[in-house]
């Protein structure tokens, strides 16, 4: 009898084990079938809502949603206080954090002290153009209202309209799911530079160009126009300064030729240009760009899970996905590669600190020369040097990955920035002396507080009005957006966690 007992138990165990394995095989087969699902010719209804796309692309959506994990608020002004002096008189001297994940794009735009505290749809300080890169609701608005109307007015005008963060519809066509771009500034910029349009580009080029919708240098071009009623209006149109090419010198010449300045530095009264985030332009000059490695190759690596393969939409530092991003081509150890990347960053930081220390001092010394009675004519050459020095320095650091994308170019730009700042400072010594100021030493700006004091930034007042805005107007925006169905019920914008953190409310909210 014993052997029948053994046979029974043995058979049951074998059946159990095989059932588990059969389940695993069936699951993998199901994954293969799922891959074939795609949106139809009719397109996706409410395509600005990424949640609607999740029905077809659950893995891509889930990985996109994980950009929530990149929630670190790194206060760059605390880390590099000289930036507050360089940007004196400009919103960037108030608040500047290292970027969080795509999940937070809309909320961070609202939370930043840079966007101020509007009280209604018509109050500022910033124009509607500031929404352009934040959301797939923007192409929707451009389609509905027309491009020039979209670019007219203040940022608060669209507070209740721009509610879905950078998502599926930002880069994909909702009928075919192919890569697509629905904002007009990219193709205009490419045409100005004599480059192929997005549609004429190869798929591999598109895998970088969709990122170039936003991760580029741009400015707001003042454009006068008349609406249907014949009323004169002014639009601030997002424009890429590529007419003289994509080099830093080419863009510098473009801005100089049209006499453009983003603002005037309040200490040195120098007309300045603020570099935005020229990630795409700098990537092109670096080795990965020149070899044809696209943004998506590293930041959205192909990922294998069971029987399926998909692009990881958790856009983040490739150092977090080295096996899928780097190791496809590089065959040494992950640790060794990581060390090389960190070394590049240290080298950038070394030269950045030197160059911007000199730029900050040049601003302050120019301010002292103005006090002592130096004329605009005397300071003209110095201001040109400061303008160019800071532009080049800013171009090197404004895109956080530039030290890696194009290390040599970043060091070249910082070297050039430091040289021009030094030239300005040498000339300043003689101008100060001419006006009787000898041995002037600029005050220290080695902490955020000291630097913001020099830049005359009143943080408590800015924070107070921002918190008031968040309690009033922002709440109305969210209510209206939800009521009008612009947000999916399970939308990330309604997730309280999205708004749980900022550089200032943790310290100021009670």
């Amino acid at each position, binding site marked *: 009898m014993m052997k029948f007992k053994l046979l029974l138990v043995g058979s049951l165990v074998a059946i159990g084990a*095989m059932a588990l394995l*059969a389940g695993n095989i069936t699951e993998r087969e199901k994954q293969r079938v799922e891959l074939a699902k795609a949106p139809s010719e009719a397109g996706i209804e409410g395509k600005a809502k990424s949640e609607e796309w999740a029905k077809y692309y659950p893995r891509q959506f889930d990985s996109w949603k994980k950009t929530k994990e990149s929630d670190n608020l790194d206060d760059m002004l605390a880390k590099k206080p000289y930036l507050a002096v360089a940007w004196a008189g400009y919103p960037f001297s108030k608040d500047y954090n290292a970027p969080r994940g795509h999940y937070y794009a809309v909320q961070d735009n609202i939370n930043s002290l840079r966007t101020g505290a509007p009280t209604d749809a018509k109050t500022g300080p910033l124009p509607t153009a500031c929404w352009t890169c934040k959301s797939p609701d923007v192409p929707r608005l451009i389609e509905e209202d027309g491009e020039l109307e979209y670019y007219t007015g203040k940022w608060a005008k669209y507070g209740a309209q721009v509610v879905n963060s950078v998502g599926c519809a930002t880069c994909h066509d909702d009928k075919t799911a192919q890569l697509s771009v629905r904002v007009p500034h990219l193709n205009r910029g490419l045409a100005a530079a004599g480059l192929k349009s997005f549609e004429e580009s190869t798929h591999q080029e598109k895998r970088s160009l969709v990122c170039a919708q936003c991760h580029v240098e741009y400015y707001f071009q003042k454009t006068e126009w008349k609406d249907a009623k014949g009323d004169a209006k002014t639009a601030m149109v997002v424009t890429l300064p590529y007419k003289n090419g994509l080099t830093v010198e080419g863009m510098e010449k473009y801005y100089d030729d049209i006499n453009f300045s983003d603002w005037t530095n309040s200490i040195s009264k120098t007309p300045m240009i603020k570099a935005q985030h020229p990630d795409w332009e700098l990537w092109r000059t670096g080795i990965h760009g020149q070899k044809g490695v696209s943004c998506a190759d590293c930041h959205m690596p192909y990922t294998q899970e069971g029987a399926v393969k998909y692009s990881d939409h958790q856009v983040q530092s490739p150092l977090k996905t080295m096996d899928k991003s780097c190791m*496809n081509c590089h065959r040494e150890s992950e640790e060794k590669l990581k060390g090389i990347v960190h070394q590049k960053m240290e080298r950038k930081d070394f030269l950045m600190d030197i160059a911007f220390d000199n730029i900050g001092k040049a601003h302050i010394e120019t301010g002292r020369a103005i006090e002592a009675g130096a004329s605009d004519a005397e300071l003209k050459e110095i201001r040109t040097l400061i303008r160019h020095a800071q532009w080049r320095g800013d171009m090197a650091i404004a895109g956080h990955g530039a030290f890696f994308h194009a290390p040599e170019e970043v060091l070249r730009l910082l070297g050039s920035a430091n040289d021009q700042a030094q030239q300005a400072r040498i000339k300043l010594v003689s101008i100060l002396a001419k006006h009787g100021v000898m041995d002037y030493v600029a005050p220290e700006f080695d902490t955020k507080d000291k630097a913001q004091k020099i830049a005359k930034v009143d943080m408590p007042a800015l924070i107070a009005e921002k918190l008031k805005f968040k309690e009033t107007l922002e709440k109305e925006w969210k209510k209206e957006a939800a009521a009008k169905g612009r947000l999916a019920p399970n939308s990330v914008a309604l997730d309280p966690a999205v708004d749980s953190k900022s550089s200032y409310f943790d310290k100021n909210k009670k």
Partner: protein
Amino acid sequence: MKNSNFLKYAALLVFVIAIGFFAYMVHASKALSYLSSDPKACINCHVMNTQYATWQHSSHAERAGCIDCHLPRDNMVNKYIAKARDGYNHSVAFTFNTYKNAIKISDDGAKRVQENCISCHASLTSQMTINSDNDHKYDDPSVATGRRCWECHKGVPHGKVRGLATTPNNLGVKEVK
């Protein structure tokens, strides 16, 4: 007596079911294909799609399949030992999802491939192997002083980029025909 009869028939019935289930599993997991030398067997579990696609487009596709390079060819015993060991490791890794996406060949696997390169290209490499035996240590798993064929012939046969990025449109199990 009645009880023991019941146990006997129950045990036999369950045993027959287990055998039937086993036969089904052999079918579902395409297990018999592993006894063949068909390269398609290597993409049963979807992990090797990239390697299959790149090989399919390579100069080796007409002449040599997966096992011609990757399994020992000196004798049947070594071949089947290697096949069983690799098969077991691969199936565990795939079932429990423990493998990395940029797959790297093991030292043992690299040694086998190197030997197979030389064995097929013997007429081409005979003088080279005589010369290089003085300098290179093919048997040294760390290859401290030596070079493997594919360190120069980088694109043979799987392309220079060895990972999922090589065949971006080969999603899932789509075969390149």
